[in-house]
């Protein structure tokens, strides 16, 4: 057997970039087959589908090989020839040289094909496939890239693997995408794009524990400079922290939330109380209405405060007060309101030593302007942790106000205005802490509406309620009050219009003395809707005539009816009670006037009768 050893050729069919297999190519003739001297065309089929055509020249006399020893030859890498079997010693050397030369040509051809033709064709296909990404045509891009993936140069192949995985993600083929990404990530953990995409796929599938390692590798490789990666890492760690809380691993949760804070995107959603077991367990007990358990935790926190870092002591002491106040609130024992108030005030003072614990509800005209709000926000931004404290202070003062309200409902004895002022004061502090919080407006508006002593107070209360609604409050009682007030306003507008019509008719009535009409106009012209006598020249042109009693009665009756209609919508207004009395008096006077007129008529008739009897009887006698 003759073996031809051609290292350059032997790399054939191996992916670019990989080392060639140092094997050999053997050309073996079947037993009993002799190769006559001559020239033979040879066609080699290449795995990528192409073919290489060459020529083999066999020199000398043909030799019939035995069945056990097929004709073959070996060409060494050094170009030497070994006689490995029975050969024709006469022409063998020449044959081998010819074969070597031929195969060398074939090798060079294959090498050129492998290093030039195939990469050039693959690169062209790669460019075409990647161009499909620009059109979001992942369905066509995916098979195109997959087909050429192994034929690409190293740099392009790695890039192609990313694109293949990305296309799979866009086509919702998450299993395959994750499998491929995991393999590429294992090969090169420092590839930040692959690490991100792998983490993204796993986070999308809610596998947050699986998403963490590639993100950690990404951070190690310096890939967190991207806001996108940082945010994903924060999201993943946040989810892991929540699961840790749920499973009772408070320490692990605290560490994970610490990482979330460090990453920076979800800081405002990190629970601030997770670093203290007393607070965590006490809060759970409060939610479970376990007053005894809650007290035990918050009293334990009180005892632990001196051993805490100085920077945490006041806040933790405030939380202890707050927890104990909530326990007292839930317990709702007789006389417990004072205890709740004392603890809540203590908590508020610890959180903000210079903060007020009582305040006046501002005049409606003192509502903050946009400029004031911007200023407030700037101040809050400048005060580190101020926002967090504002929120808890707001809730503390709201609870104080509600506690006062609850105590008032249980003990509603006298001092209404004083009690009202006390409750409103608590809610004024809530408003100070958060002027966009609807609750204080709702409570104060309703209280002031129900305890209003006149229309002015009632209108002011309605303005406060309107603010609550503008801030999102939609409670049915709030809407009922606002609707009722709106109806009153509309009715009041109609009443004024009707009244002005009655007034005009009266002052234009020539049967009423001018002095009476001028005095009335003079009295009402201080209101904008009533023009003065001088501004109404038409009144001077009114034809004055003495009224009959019937006219006076008709006019009076009509006036009374219209005034009664006007007063109907303000029936409960005490300031209009006098008008009602006068209306009834006017009716009586009109009746008296009518009675007197009837009496006058009767007397006139009697006089006529007496005089007529006398005169007419005398006339008849004389005539």
């Amino acid at each position, binding site marked *: 057997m003759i073996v031809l050893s051609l290292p350059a050729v032997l790399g054939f069919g191996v992916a670019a970039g990989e080392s060639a297999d140092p094997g050999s190519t053997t050309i073996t003739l079947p037993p009993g087959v002799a190769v006559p001297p001559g020239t033979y065309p040879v066609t080699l089929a290449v795995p990528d589908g192409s073919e290489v055509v060459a020529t083999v020249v066999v020199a000398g006399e043909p030799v019939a090989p035995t069945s056990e020893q097929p004709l073959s030859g070996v060409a060494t890498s050094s170009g030497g020839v070994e006689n490995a079997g029975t050969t024709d010693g006469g022409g063998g050397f020449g044959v081998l040289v010819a074969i070597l030369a031929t195969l060398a040509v074939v090798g060079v051809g294959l090498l050129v094909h492998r290093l030039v033709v195939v990469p050039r064709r693959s690169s062209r296909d790669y460019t075409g496939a990647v161009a499909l990404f620009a059109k979001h045509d992942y369905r066509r891009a995916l098979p195109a890239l997959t087909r050429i993936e192994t034929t690409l140069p190293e740099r392009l192949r790695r890039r192609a693997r990313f694109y293949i995985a990305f296309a799979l993600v866009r086509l919702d083929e998450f299993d395959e995408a994750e499998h491929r990404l995991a393999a590429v990530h294992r090969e090169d953990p420092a590839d930040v794009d692959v690490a991100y995409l792998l983490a993204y796929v796993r986070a999308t599938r809610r596998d947050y524990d699986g998403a963490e390692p590639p993100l950690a590798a990404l951070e190690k490789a310096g890939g967190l400079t991207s806001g996108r990666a940082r945010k994903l890492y924060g999201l993943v760690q946040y989810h892991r922290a929540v699961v840790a809380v749920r499973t009772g691993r408070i320490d692990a949760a605290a560490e994970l939330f610490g990482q979330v804070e460090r990453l920076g995107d979800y800081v405002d959603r990190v629970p601030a109380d997770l670093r203290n077991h007393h607070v965590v367990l006490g809060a759970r007990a409060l*939610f479970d209405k376990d007053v005894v358990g809650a007290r035990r935790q918050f009293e334990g926190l009180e005892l632990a405060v001196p051993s805490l870092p100085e920077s945490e002591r006041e806040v933790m002491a405030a939380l202890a007060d707050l927890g104990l106040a909530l326990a007292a609130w839930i317990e709702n024992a007789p006389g417990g309101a004072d205890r709740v108030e004392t603890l809540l005030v203590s908590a508020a003072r610890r959180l903000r030593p210079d903060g007020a614990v009582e305040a006046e509800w501002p005049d409606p005209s003192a509502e903050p302007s946009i400029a004031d709000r911007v200023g407030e926000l700037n101040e809050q931004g400048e005060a580190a942790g101020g926002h967090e404290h504002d*929120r808890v202070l707001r809730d503390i003062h709201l609870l104080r106000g509600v506690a006062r309200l609850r105590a008032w409902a249980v003990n*509603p004895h006298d001092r209404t205005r004083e009690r009202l002022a006390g409750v409103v004061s608590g809610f004024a502090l809530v408003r100070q802490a958060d002027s966009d919080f609807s609750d204080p407006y709702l409570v104060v508006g309703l209280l002031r509406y129900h305890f209003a002593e006149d229309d002015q107070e009632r209108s002011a209360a309605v303005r406060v309620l309107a603010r609550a609604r503008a801030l999102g409050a939609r409670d049915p009682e709030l809407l009922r009050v606002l609707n009722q007030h709106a109806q009153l306003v509309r009715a009041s507008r109609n009443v004024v219009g009707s009244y002005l019509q009655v007034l005009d008719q009266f002052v234009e009535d020539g049967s009423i003395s001018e002095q009476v009409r001028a005095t009335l106009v003079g009295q009402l012209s201080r209101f904008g809707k009533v023009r003065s006598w001088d501004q109404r020249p038409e009144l001077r042109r009114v034809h004055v005539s003495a009224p009959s009693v019937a006219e006076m009665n008709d006019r009076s009756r009509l006036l009374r009816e219209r005034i009664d209609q006007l007063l109907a919508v303000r029936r409960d207004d005490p300031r209009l009670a006098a008008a009602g009395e006068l209306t009834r008096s006017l009716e009586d006077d009109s009746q008296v006037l009518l009675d007197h007129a009837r009496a006058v008529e009767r007397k006139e008739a009697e006089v006529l009768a007496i005089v007529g009897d006398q005169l007419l009887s005398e006339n008849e006698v004389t005539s």
Partner: protein
Amino acid sequence: MTVLGRREPVPAECLDELPSLELDVSADGGDELSRVELRRAVLSIAEVDHIAEVDLVSAVVDAMADESDGEE
């Protein structure tokens, strides 16, 4: 994706195209999270909301009305 002419899109541009994931912990026990946040759960623990507040105002108004009726 930002692709200029026939320029090959870089991976970062592809990644920018992915929809960002939103933080939603409801499926992971987000409710449990609020139960450990004392300073953010004051009103939840006290069960104070608009309904409770309006009920208390009504209770005060009714109590004051009863008080006035009693005095009369």
